[in-house]
C-alpha cells in the first residue's frame, strides 16, 4: 500500500555505490597524499642538510717509493694527483710519479747559486728565492700540461682514466679520449740585486696596484723592503724589472740573531718578523717611507719554541706551530674599541686599547665615560690602527709540529707532527677534520693536494698518500649557529657572507643573522599589524551596522589580493624614500594620530545628546576620517619641533651619532619611554582616578562629564609627556650620573638610519598581513553566539564592555589563531623583505637598520649556489630552520587554541 502508487527501490543503485567508492578513494588519497608530501619535503630537506655535519674521511694510507730528508724545503703534488716534486735545499728538483714513486726527472735549478732563503705563496705556484750573493729571484715552480697530438704506441693501450709515466711526466686519458701530459714547469726570473750580503729571509706580497713588495732580512741584520716596478726599456723595448729597495730604520732587538721567519701580509700593508723563541715584531709598510716596529708580541707560551710558521691563503693569517704541539692562528684586527680624544677628560688625544689582550681574549670595549677609564690598563694603538692577535688555537697534539701545508683554496691546513701523526684542521671553525694513523719514522714534509682530495706525507723512508674527503669543514654546528672569529673580524661574531670577490675569500655561514632578521621582520610587522587588524575586527564586528560591516570587510579583504611583490616594490621605491624625508614626522604621527582620534571621540560627547544619538551611525564613522588628517597635520607640526628641540635639528645625524650633532640622549629616551609612561598613566587612571570620578560624577550633567573627559585627556597627555621628559632627563642628561645612571639611547632600538629599514618593512608587511588577521579575527568575533552578546547588552553593558568582557574572551582562540596565521605569513614572506629590507645580514635591534631574512636569503642565493656544496646545503638548512620556525608557531598556536577551546567547550 503506497501513498503515491510508486514503489521505492530498496537497493542502492550501482552507480551511486561506485560514486561513493570513488569519492572515498579520492578523498583518502588526497588526504594521505598531502601528509606524505609534507613528510617527503621534510625528509628531503633533512637529507640535503645532514651531510653538512658529517666529518671528513680519509682512506687507508698508500706507500709511495719517494724519500725525503731534512733538506727537503718543498713538496707539492699536482691537481690531478698524478705527479709531485720535491725541492731540496741545494736546489735539486725531483719529479716523481705518484702512482709508483718512479722518478721522472731530476735537475738542479740553481746550478751556480746557493739558495739561502725561500718563500712560497700559499695560493699558487709562485715563489721567491734569496741567494748568498744578495740577489733575489722570483718565479714559478708548478705543474703544466699539454695534450699530445700524436699518441705514441706505448700509450695507445691506455683507456679513459688510466695513466702512465711518459717522458718527464705522466699521461692520463681524459674522458674526451685526449692524452694529457702532466709535467713540472719551472720558470725563474733573472737574479736581481737586492742587498750586499747574504739574504737570510725573504717573503713577498702583491699590492692592490699589482706591484710586488719583497721583504728581506740579510745575514748582517738589515731589514729591507723592496718595491718592484716594471718599466719599459727605451732602448730595447723590453720590459725591465726595477727594484726600489728601502731600508727599514730598525735595530735588531738586544741579544737576538736574525729573525727566523718573515711575513708580508696580503696587500702588503704590514710586515711581521718572528723568532723561534716566540718573539715577534710588526712593521707598518703601507707608505713608501718605512717606519720602525709598531708592535711587539710573544707568539708562544713561555718555554715553548716555534717549529714552523706558514701563512694561510690570503696571507692574513699566520699559523704558528710549536715544539709542544700547539698550533695557533694569528691575524691582525682593527679594534673598534678605540677611544677618541674628544670623549676624554682630561683630554688624551689618540686611540687607545687595552694592554695584554692578544692571547685568546675577546677585545674589551673601553667605556665611553672618562671617569671609568683606568689609563694604566691602556696603551696607545699602533699607528696603523691594527693589532695583531691570536684568534684561534687548534686542538693541540702531544708532539712537536714539524711541517704544515695550508690549502690553496680554503682555510684548511694539514700539519704533521714529530710522532708521525698527520692532522688536517679547518682553522676558522677550529675543527679537526681528520687525523691519520701515525707514520712510522716521522714526517719531514706534508702536502695537501690542490683540490683538497689527497694528503701526502714525506718521511725519511717513503711517502704516504691518503685519499681525503673533507666533506664540509666550514660548516659545524658552532659555525652555523654560533659566533666564529673570522679573519679580520674584531671579535668572534655571527656573520653570513656566502660569496666574495677574492680567491682567498672565506664563506661565512652563520644562520643567526638570518634568523634574527626573520624574527625582526616578523616582530615589527606584527607590532604594526596586530593592533590595527584586531581593533578593526572588533570595531566592525561589534560597533558597525551590519550594512557597513560587509562593505568594510570586503574592502579590507581586497587588500589581501595585492601581490606582495607590488607591496615590496612600493615599499622600496615609494615609501622608504618618502619616510626618509620625514622621520620625525613619522615618529610624531605614532602619537598624534591616536591623540587626535581620542580627542575627536571626547569632543563628540560634547554634542547635545539628541544629536549625538541621531548622528551615531554613518556621520560618526565618517568623522574619524576628519580626525585622521588632523592627527597627521599635528605630526607635521610637532615632528620638526621635536627635531629642533631635542635632536640638534637633525634627527638622522643624531641617530648616527655624528660628531657635529652634540644633542644629548634626552629626546631618544623620551621616544622610548613614551609608551611606558602611557601605560603607567592609563593604569593609574583605571585603578585610582576612575573610581573617584565615578563616585563624584553621579550628579554631573552629561555636558559636564564630557567637558571633564576632554580636560582629562589633555591633562593625561601633558602628564605622559612630562613623565617621559623627566625619565629621559634622568637617563640621558646625566642627572643621575652619581649613581651610575647615564646612558645613551642609541645602540639599542634606536640607531643610525638606513633608507630600507625594519620600520619600512613593518609598515608594508604589516599592511600585507592585516587582511588575513582581520578576516580571521572578524570571523572569530562574529561567531560568538549572539545570545551571549544580547545577554550582555540586555544587562546594560555598553558595546565596548560587551566586546571586552564577553566577546573577546570567548573568541580568544580564534583571535589567537588569527594572530598566529598572520605571524606564520610574516615569517615566510619573501618578496617584501627581499625588496624593502636592504638585505644586509646584520644583527641590530635598531628599528632604522635593515636586515636579511631566511626566506629572502634563500631566494637570492639558491639560484647561484653550486648543487651539493657547503653553501647549497647551508641554504637548505636555512629552509629547514624556516620550516621549523613556522612549524613551531603552528604547534604553539594549536596548543593555545586547544586550551581556550577546552575552556569554552560547553558553550
Amino acid at each position, binding site marked *: 500500500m503506497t501513498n503515491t502508487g510508486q514503489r521505492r527501490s530498496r537497493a542502492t543503485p550501482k552507480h551511486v555505490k561506485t560514486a561513493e567508492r570513488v569519492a572515498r578513494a579520492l578523498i583518502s588519497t588526497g588526504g594521505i597524499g598531502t601528509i606524505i608530501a609534507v613528510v617527503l619535503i621534510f625528509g628531503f630537506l633533512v637529507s640535503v642538510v645532514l651531510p653538512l655535519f658529517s666529518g671528513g674521511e680519509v682512506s687507508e694510507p698508500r706507500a709511495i717509493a719517494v724519500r725525503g730528508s731534512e733538506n727537503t724545503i718543498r713538496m707539492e703534488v699536482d691537481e690531478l694527483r698524478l705527479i709531485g716534486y720535491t725541492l731540496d735545499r741545494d736546489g735539486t728538483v725531483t719529479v716523481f710519479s705518484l702512482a709508483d714513486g718512479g722518478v721522472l726527472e731530476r735537475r738542479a735549478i740553481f746550478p751556480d747559486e746557493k739558495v739561502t732563503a725561500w718563500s712560497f705563496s700559499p695560493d699558487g705556484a709562485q715563489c721567491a728565492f734569496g741567494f748568498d750573493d744578495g740577489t733575489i729571484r722570483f718565479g714559478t715552480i708548478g705543474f703544466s700540461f699539454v695534450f699530445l697530438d700524436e699518441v705514441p704506441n706505448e700509450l695507445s693501450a691506455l683507456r679513459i682514466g688510466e695513466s702512465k709515466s711518459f717522458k718527464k711526466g705522466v699521461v692520463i686519458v681524459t674522458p674526451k679520449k685526449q692524452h694529457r701530459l702532466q709535467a713540472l714547469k719551472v720558470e725563474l726570473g733573472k737574479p736581481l740585486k737586492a742587498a750586499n750580503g747574504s739574504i737570510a729571509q725573504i717573503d713577498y706580497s702583491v699590492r692592490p696596484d699589482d706591484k710586488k713588495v719583497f721583504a728581506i732580512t740579510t745575514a748582517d741584520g738589515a731589514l729591507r723592503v723592496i718595491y718592484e716596478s716594471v718599466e719599459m726599456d727605451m732602448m730595447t723595448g723590453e720590459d725591465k724589472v726595477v727594484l726600489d729597495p728601502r731600508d727599514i730604520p730598525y735595530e735588531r732587538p738586544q741579544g737576538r740573531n736574525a729573525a727566523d721567519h718573515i711575513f708580508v701580509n696580503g696587500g702588503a700593508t704590514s710586515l711581521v718578523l718572528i723568532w723561534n723563541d716566540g718573539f715577534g715584531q710588526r712593521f707598518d709598510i703601507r707608505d713608501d717611507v718605512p717606519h720602525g716596529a709598531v708592535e711587539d708580541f710573544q707568539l708562544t707560551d713561555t718555554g715553548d719554541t716555534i717549529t714552523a710558521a706558514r701563512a694561510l691563503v690570503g696571507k692574513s693569517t699566520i699559523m704558528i706551530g710549536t715544539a709542544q704541539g700547539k698550533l695557533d692562528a694569528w691575524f691582525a684586527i682593527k679594534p673598534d674599541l678605540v677611544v677618541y680624544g674628544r670623549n676624554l677628560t682630561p683630554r688624551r688625544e689618540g686611540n687607545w686599547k687595552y694592554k695584554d689582550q692578544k692571547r685568546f681574549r675577546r677585545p674589551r670595549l673601553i667605556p665611553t665615560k672618562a671617569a671609568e677609564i683606568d689609563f694604566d690598563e691602556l696603551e696607545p694603538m699602533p699607528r696603523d690602527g691594527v693589532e695583531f692577535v691570536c684568534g684561534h688555537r687548534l686542538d693541540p697534539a702531544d708532539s712537536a709540529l714539524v711541517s704544515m701545508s695550508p690549502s690553496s683554496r680554503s682555510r684548511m691546513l694539514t700539519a704533521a707532527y714529530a710522532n708521525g701523526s698527520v692532522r688536517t684542521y679547518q682553522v676558522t671553525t677550529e675543527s679537526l677534520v681528520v687525523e691519520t694513523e701515525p707514520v712510522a719514522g716521522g714526517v719531514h714534509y706534508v702536502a695537501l693536494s690542490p683540490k683538497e682530495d689527497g694528503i701526502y706525507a714525506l718521511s725519511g723512508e717513503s711517502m704516504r698518500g691518503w685519499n681525503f674527503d673533507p666533506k664540509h669543514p666550514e660548516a659545524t654546528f658552532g659555525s652555523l649557529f654560533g659566533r666564529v672569529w673570522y679573519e679580520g673580524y674584531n671579535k668572534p661574531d655571527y656573520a653570513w657572507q656566502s660569496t666574495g670577490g677574492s680567491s682567498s675569500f672565506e664563506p661565512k655561514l652563520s644562520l643567526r643573522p638570518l634568523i634574527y632578521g626573520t624574527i625582526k621582520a616578523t616582530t615589527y610587522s606584527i607590532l604594526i599589524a596586530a593592533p590595527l587588524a584586531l581593533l578593526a575586527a572588533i570595531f566592525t564586528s561589534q560597533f558597525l551596522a551590519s550594512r557597513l560591516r560587509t562593505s568594510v570587510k570586503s574592502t579590507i579583504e581586497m587588500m589581501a589580493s595585492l601581490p606582495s611583490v607590488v607591496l615590496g616594490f612600493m615599499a622600496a621605491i615609494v615609501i622608504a624614500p618618502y619616510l626618509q624625508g620625514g622621520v620625525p614626522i613619522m615618529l610624531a604621527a605614532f602619537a598624534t594620530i591616536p591623540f587626535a582620534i581620542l580627542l575627536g571621540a571626547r569632543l563628540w560627547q560634547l554634542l547635545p*545628546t539628541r544629536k549625538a*544619538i541621531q548622528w551615531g551611525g554613518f556621520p560618526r564613522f565618517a568623522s574619524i576620517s576628519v580626525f585622521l588628517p588632523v592627527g597627521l597635520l599635528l605630526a607635521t607640526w610637532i615632528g620638526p619641533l621635536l627635531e629642533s628641540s631635542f635632536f640638534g635639528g637633525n634627527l638622522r645625524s643624531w641617530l648616527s651619532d655624528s660628531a657635529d650633532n652634540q644633542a644629548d640622549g634626552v629626546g631618544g629616551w623620551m621616544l622610548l619611554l613614551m609608551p611606558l609612561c602611557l601605560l603607567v598613566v592609563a593604569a593609574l587612571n583605571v585603578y585610582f582616578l576612575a573610581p573617584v570620578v565615578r563616585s563624584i560624577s553621579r550628579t554631573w550633567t552629561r555636558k559636564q562629564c564630557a567637558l571633564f573627559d576632554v580636560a582629562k585627556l589633555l591633562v593625561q597627555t601633558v602628564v605622559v609627556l612630562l613623565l617621559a621628559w623627566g625619565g629621559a632627563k634622568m637617563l640621558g642628561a646625566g642627572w643621575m650620573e652619581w649613581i651610575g645612571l647615564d646612558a645613551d639611547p642609541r645602540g639599542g632600538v634606536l640607531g643610525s638610519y638606513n633608507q630600507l629599514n625594519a620600520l619600512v618593512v613593518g609598515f608594508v608587511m604589516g599592511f600585507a598581513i592585516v587582511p588575513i588577521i582581520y578576516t580571521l579575527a572578524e570571523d572569530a568575533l562574529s561567531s560568538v553566539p549572539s545570545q551571549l552578546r*544580547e*545577554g550582555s547588552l540586555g*544587562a546594560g553593558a*555598553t558595546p565596548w564592555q560587551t566586546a571586552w*568582557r564577553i566577546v573577546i*574572551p570567548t573568541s580568544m582562540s580564534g583571535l589567537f589563531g588569527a594572530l598566529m596565521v598572520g605571524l606564520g605569513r610574516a615569517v615566510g614572506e619573501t618578496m617584501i623583505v627581499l625588496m624593502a629590507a636592504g638585505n644586509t645580514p646584520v644583527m641590530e635591534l635598531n628599528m632604522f637598520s635593515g636586515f636579511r631574512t631566511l626566506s629572502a636569503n634563500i631566494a637570492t642565493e639558491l639560484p647561484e649556489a653550486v648543487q651539493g656544496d657547503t653553501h647549497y646545503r647551508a641554504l637548505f638548512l636555512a629552509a629547514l630552520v624556516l620550516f621549523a620556525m613556522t612549524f613551531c608557531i603552528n604547534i604553539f598556536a594549536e596548543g593555545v587554541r586547544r586550551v581556550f577551546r577546552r575552556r569554552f567547550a*560547553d558553550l
Partner: protein
Amino acid sequence: MLQQKTIQPEIDMITHQEDRLGGVFDAVKRDDTFPTAVHDALHQEDAVIEVNDFDLWYGAKRALYSVSLVVPRRKVTALIGPSGCGKSTLLRSVNRMNDLISTVRIKGDMVLNGDSIYDPGTDVIELRKRIGMVFQKPNPFPMSIRENVVYSLRIDGVRDRGVLEEVCEQSLRAVGLWDEVHDRLEDSALRLSGGQQQRLCIARAIAGEPEVMLLDEPCSALDPIATQRIEDLIHELQGRYSILMVTHNMQQASRASDYTAFMYLGRLVEFGPTEEIFLKPHLKETEDYVTGRFG
C-alpha cells in the same frame, strides 16, 4: 506586496470559520489594526510599562500593528499566541533589543515608569540597566558563576568585595540556586545543567535590581522538571517583581501569570486577568486559541 503574500495562506485557512469568529480576521484581511479587548480589571492596575500604539516593521514586513498594552506593577503578565504573532518582538522592543537589527523601523512609543523608551534622547544603555532580561536559551557567560551573577555590578564598576558577595548570595538565594552552587562559585557557569543555567540567568537579571523583568520563553529549551522549577520560581517572584513573560505553553501561562495577553498576527487581541482569559474570554478567537482549536 510582500506582507500580502506571506499571510495569504493563513487568511485562506481561516475564512471558512469567519462566521464563528470576531473581527480579528477581518482586520488581518484588511491589513489593518485591531482594537484590543481589554478587561476591566486592568484599569485598576498601576502600570510599570505602557505601550502606546506601537508599530514595528522588519524592513517592509510589518510585525506589530498598533499594539497598546499596560504591564501591571509587581504582577506577572504572560504574552501568548501562535508562532510568529509578534510576542517576542514586542518583548524585545521593551528594552530596545531590536535596535541590534538594522532593518527595524518603529512607530509609537513605550513608557517605562514615566520615561519614554523611544525618545531620541533616551540612553539605551541606561534604559537596559533598568530592565532585566532572560532569554529563550540559557546564556550564561563563559566565566565563573559568581562573575555571572554580579555581571551588571561589574559593568557599573563596582569593586567593593562585600557588596559583590552580598548581591551574589542574595540573587542566588532568590532563584534557589545558592544551596546548589555556594561551594563552587568559582566554577565555570557553563558546567551547570540547563535548568540551573536558566535560574542563574534569572539571578543575573535580579542582581541588577531591574524595574521590570522580561522573560522570553524562559522554559522552551528545558526539560519538564527544570521547567517546573522555573515556573515555581516565577511564582515565587510574583509580587516582588514586575514580570513580562512570553510563553508558548498555555498551561504555563495559566499557572504562573496574573495577566495574560493574547496576540495574533501582530495584533494584541485580548488582554485580561489570566483566569478570565482562560475561562471566560470576551472574544471567540481567544477562546478558540486557549482551548486549542487553532494555533
